[in-house]
C-alpha cells in the first residue's frame, strides 16, 4: 500500500513537473510568437518611417526623422548620424537618445571619422563590445550597428549608428543579425531617400533660383539677350525692346549683328568680340549700334558664353546698356576739365607775373624811402610817417613773396634731391636769426641719416615758414627762447618736428591756423598765408601735417613726408 502511494506520489510529481514545464514551453511559444509579431511590427514601423521621411522638406527635418526612426525601428537606445562635409575638418553630429556636451561631441566625432574610413560603404556592420573597447574606446557604446553612406560626388560622407550604452545595454535587444538586416534595409532606404530628397531639393533650389533670375532678367533696367550656341536670339527682355525698339518676335532667331550694326559700328570691335567668344571667354565692349528707327546709340555690352558640364557652349547671355547719354556727359566733363586746367594754369601764371611785376616798383619805393630816411632831409615827424609807410611796404612785400611761394609750389613739380637736413636747417635759420627779438637759439636733433631724398626748395620753404613763426611768436624778453627742429629719418619717409617755447596758440584757433589769411594774433605782422602755404606744400609732397600747441608754453608742428620718389603721392593740389 505504502509502495503504491509512493509510486502514485512520484507519478504526481512527474506529472506536476510536466505541467510546469509545459507552461515554460508554452511561454517559449508565446515569446517566439511575440518576437515574430514584434518583428512584423518593426517592419511596419520601417514602412511608416519611409513614408514619413519622403515627406520631409528640409535636410534637418529628414535627419531628425531618421534618427527617431532608427530608435523606433531597430529599438536601440541611441541613434547617431555623423555628416562629414567636403572640407576634411567640417563635420556635424546629430543624436537621439544621448545628450552630449560640446567637447564630448568633438571627441566622439573624431573617433567616428576614423571609423568612417575603416568600414565599407553601403553595408551594415555590428561592432561588438570587445571591438569597441579595443579599437574605439572613447565611444560611449556597449555595442552598435553602423552603416556608411557615400554621396556619389564624394562631397559628403555619412556614418549612421544605432547602439546601446554600457549602462542600459541589458534593457535593449541584443544586436544580432536579425537587427543588422533590419538596420541594413533601413539605411539603404534612408540613403535612397536622402539622395532623392537631395536631388529634389536641388531641383527646387534651381527652380527658385531660375524664378529669381528670370524675375531679375525681366525687371532689370539693363537689356538682356539670350542667344543659342549659333548666336541666334532665343529671348530678349523688355528693357532690350525699350532700348532698341525691336520686339522678341522681330528678333527671335536672328543674330544681333544683323539688325544692330550700322555705318559707324566699329568692325575692329566686332572682330574682338567674335574672337573672345570663339575662345569661350566673356567679353565687355562699347560699340555703336543702331535702333529700329535708325538712331545710333552707344551700347555697352557684356557677353558671357554659358557652358554645360562638358564645357560645351550652350548659350550666350548678353547684358547691354545704352550709354549714349553717359558718353556725352563724359565727353563734356573731359572738355570742361581740360578747360579748367588751362584756366588754372593761366591763373597761376597771371598771379606769378602780377606778383613779380608788382614787387619791382615796390622794391624801388622801399629803396627810395630808405634813402630819404638816411638823408636827414626830413623832420622827425615826417620821418615817423615815412617809417610807417616803410612798415606797410614791408608787409605788402611779404604778402607778395608768399603769393609767389604759393604760385611756385602750384606750378612746379616735386623734385627728388639729396638734402643734408642739418645744413638746410642752419642755412634757413641764418636768414631769419637777425629778425629775432629776443634772440633765439636753434636746436637740431637728427635721428638716422642726415641725408634725405626730397625736394630741397620745398623743404626749405617749409622750415623757413615754421621757423619764422617760432621767431615771430617767441615770448617777449624770454632769455632762453629757442626753436627746435627734430628730424627722424625712417628711410622711406621722414618725420620733422618744429618745436618752440613761444607764446603758443589758443585751442580755439588751432583748427584754423592752416586756413588762408588766418591770423591768430591781432597785432601779428604775418600775412596769414604762411601756414596755408605750408599745408599746400606738404600736400603737394604727399605728406601729412599736424599741430599741437599750448597757450603760453609753445607750439609743435609735426610733418611726415616721403623721402623716396615711389612714395610720393601724385595729388593735384586742391585750390
Amino acid at each position, binding site marked *: 500500500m505504502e509502495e503504491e502511494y509512493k509510486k502514485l506520489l512520484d507519478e*504526481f*510529481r512527474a*506529472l*506536476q*513537473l510536466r*505541467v*510546469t*514545464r509545459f*507552461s*515554460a*514551453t*508554452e*511561454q517559449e511559444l*508565446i*515569446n517566439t*510568437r*511575440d518576437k515574430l*509579431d*514584434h518583428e512584423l511590427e518593426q517592419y511596419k514601423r520601417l514602412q511608416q518611417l519611409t513614408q514619413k521621411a519622403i515627406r520631409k522638406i528640409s535636410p534637418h527635418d529628414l535627419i531628425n526623422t531618421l534618427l*527617431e*526612426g532608427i*530608435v*523606433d525601428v531597430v*529599438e536601440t*537606445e541611441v541613434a547617431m548620424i555623423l555628416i562629414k562635409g567636403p572640407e576634411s575638418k567640417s563635420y556635424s553630429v546629430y543624436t*537621439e*537618445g544621448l*545628450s552630449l556636451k560640446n567637447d564630448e561631441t568633438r571627441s566622439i566625432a573624431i573617433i567616428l571619422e576614423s571609423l568612417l574610413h575603416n568600414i565599407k560603404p553601403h553595408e551594415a556592420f555590428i561592432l561588438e563590445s570587445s571591438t569597441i573597447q579595443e579599437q574605439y574606446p572613447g565611444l560611449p557604446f556597449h555595442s552598435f550597428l553602423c552603416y556608411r553612406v557615400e554621396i556619389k560626388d564624394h562631397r559628403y560622407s555619412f556614418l549612421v549608428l544605432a547602439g546601446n550604452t554600457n549602462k*542600459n545595454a*541589458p*534593457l*535593449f535587444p541584443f544586436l544580432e543579425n536579425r537587427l543588422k538586416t533590419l538596420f541594413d534595409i533601413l539605411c539603404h532606404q534612408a540613403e535612397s531617400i536622402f539622395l532623392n530628397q537631395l536631388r529634389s531639393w536641388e531641383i527646387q533650389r534651381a527652380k527658385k533660383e531660375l524664378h529669381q533670375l528670370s524675375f531679375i532678367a525681366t525687371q532689370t533696367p539693363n537689356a538682356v539677350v539670350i542667344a543659342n550656341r549659333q548666336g541666334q536670339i532665343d529671348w530678349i527682355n523688355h528693357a532690350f525692346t525699350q532700348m532698341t525698339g525691336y520686339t522678341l518676335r522681330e528678333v527671335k532667331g536672328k543674330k544681333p549683328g544683323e539688325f544692330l550694326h550700322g555705318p559707324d559700328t566699329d568692325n575692329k570691335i566686332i572682330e574682338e568680340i567674335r574672337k573672345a567668344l570663339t575662345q569661350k571667354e566673356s567679353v565687355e565692349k562699347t560699340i555703336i549700334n543702331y535702333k529700329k528707327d535708325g538712331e545710333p546709340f552707344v551700347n555697352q555690352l557684356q557677353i558671357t558664353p554659358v557652358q554645360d558640364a562638358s564645357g560645351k557652349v550652350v548659350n550666350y547671355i548678353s547684358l547691354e546698356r545704352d550709354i549714349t547719354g553717359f558718353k556725352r556727359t563724359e565727353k563734356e566733363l573731359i572738355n570742361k576739365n581740360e578747360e579748367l586746367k588751362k584756366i588754372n594754369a593761366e591763373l597761376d601764371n597771371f598771379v606769378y607775373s602780377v606778383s613779380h611785376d608788382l614787387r619791382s616798383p615796390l622794391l624801388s619805393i622801399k629803396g627810395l624811402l630808405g634813402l630819404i630816411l638816411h638823408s636827414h632831409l626830413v623832420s622827425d615827424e615826417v620821418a615817423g610817417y615815412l617809417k610807417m609807410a616803410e612798415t606797410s611796404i614791408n608787409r605788402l612785400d611779404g604778402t607778395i613773396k608768399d603769393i609767389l611761394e604759393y604760385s611756385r609750389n602750384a606750378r612746379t613739380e616735386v623734385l627728388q634731391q639729396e638734402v643734408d637736413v642739418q645744413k638746410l636747417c642752419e642755412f634757413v635759420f641764418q636768414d631769419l636769426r637777425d629778425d629775432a627779438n629776443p634772440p633765439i637759439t636753434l636746436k637740431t636733433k637728427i635721428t638716422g641719416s642726415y641725408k634725405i631724398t626730397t625736394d630741397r626748395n620745398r623743404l626749405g620753404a617749409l622750415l623757413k615758414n615754421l621757423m619764422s613763426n617760432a621767431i615771430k611768436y617767441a615770448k617777449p624778453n624770454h632769455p632762453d627762447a629757442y626753436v627746435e627742429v627734430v628730424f627722424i629719418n625712417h628711410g622711406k619717409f621722414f618725420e620733422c618736428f618744429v618745436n618752440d617755447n613761444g607764446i603758443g596758440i589758443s585751442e580755439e584757433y588751432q583748427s584754423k591756423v592752416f586756413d588762408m589769411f588766418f591770423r591768430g594774433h591781432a597785432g601779428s605782422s604775418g600775412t596769414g598765408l604762411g601756414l596755408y602755404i605750408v599745408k599746400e606744400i606738404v600736400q603737394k609732397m604727399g605728406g601729412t601735417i599736424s599741430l599741437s600747441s599750448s597757450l603760453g608754453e609753445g607750439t609743435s608742428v609735426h610733418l611726415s613726408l616721403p623721402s623716396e620718389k615711389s612714395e610720393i603721392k601724385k595729388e593735384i593740389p586742391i585750390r
Partner: protein
Amino acid sequence: MLSFYSASARIINSRRAVNECMEVALGENLADCSVLILHASIGHNFEELLDEAHRLAPHASILLSSCCGVVGREGVSESMKDIALMAIKGDDFGIAHCNEFYGHNAYHKTLAMARELKQSKPGINMLYFLGSGINTDNNAVIQACEEVFGEQVTLFGATSSDNMKGFINYQGVNQHLYQHGAFLLGFSDPTLKVETCATHGFVAIGEPLVVTSCQGNTIQTLNGKPAWSEYLRRLGLPENATCGDTIPVGALGEKLSTTLSEEYGNQHLLRVVTSHDGQNMHYATDIKQGTELWLTKRDEALIFNEMEKMVNQMKLKLIGKTPVAVFHADCLARGRFLHNRIIKEELVSSMQVPFYDKQGNCPPWLGMYGFGEFARLGNKNTYHNYTTALYVLYR
C-alpha cells in the same frame, strides 16, 4: 477640489513626448496644473522627461515612474518609448518621497514619508504609492501607511519596473531621479472617494513549495534546498535562466482564507520574484518560514471571466456616482508576454468601456505595466502581483 486630465502616446524623443502629452491633456496652457504624474517605458531618457516637464510646468509637482508599457484613454502600448500622464489641478494634495528604498528599510522609509505627508497636509483620505519594484517589501509599505493614516485609508498604486528584465527601474520626484526610490501622493479632497479592485485569473497547480528558510523579503531555501535552483527546477527552466524568464511563468500563489477567496474569485494571492542574489530570491513582500507557495498556470477563460466580474462589481458600487479619474496598474507579465496584442486590447477595452460617460468619453486614465499592484481585499490594503488593478476616483 481636484480635477484630472490625461494623455498617452508612443513618441521616441523624450522631450517631445512630454510636450505632446501635456498639450493633449492640458491644451494650450501647459503650466496650468499642480501635479504631473508621468509613467514612461524604460527606453525613455528619464532625466529629460523630468527636465522637460519642469520646463513646461515650473510650478507643478512632478512624479515619475518607469514601467514596461502604458495604458491611457488612447489605448494600450508596450514599447520602449511609451508615455502616459495624469495632470491634476487643485491644491488638495501632499507629496512625500525618498531614495534608497529597499526591502530591509521599506517600513521605516514609508513610515517617515507617511508622517511627513500627514504633517504637511491635513485631511488626507487616500494614498497613491509608487516605489521601486526591485527588492522591496510591499507589506511593510502597507503597514507603515496604516500606522500613520489608519487601516481605513485606501492605499493604491504600483511598483515601478523595467521591461521585465529586473535590471533597473526609475522613480522621479520634481528634479530628482531615483533608481530605488518611492513616493506617496496623498489626496485630501473631501469630495473625492476611491474604489479599488484586482484580479488575476491564474490557477494553482501541484504541490506547493515550502519556504524553509527566509529573512524579511528574502527566501533562502525552498523545500530545504537552495531557493533559486529549486524554483527553476520546478519551473522546468535551465540553471542560467533569468528573472526575465521566470516572471511570465513563475507566479507564486499564497493561499487565501475561504472568505477572502470568495471575494477575490481565486484561492490564491500571487507573488512575483523580481530579482535574486545568487540562491536568495527577493520576494515582493516579507514572508514567514513554513509558507506554502504554489506554482500557478494562467487560465485565459478565467482571466476574461474574472475581469468581467470585477468590472461589473465595480460598476455596481459606482451607481449614481461619477468617475473622475481612473488609475490602473497591471502586471507586466499580463502584457505582451501573456497575451497577444488583440486579446490585450480586448481586455483593456472591456475594463474601460463600463466607465465611459453618456457621451462615450473615457474618464482620464493612467495605467502602467509594472511589477506589482496595491488594491484592497477583505476591506484591507493588500499588495498583489500578476493582477489587473483598477482604482476609480469618483464623486
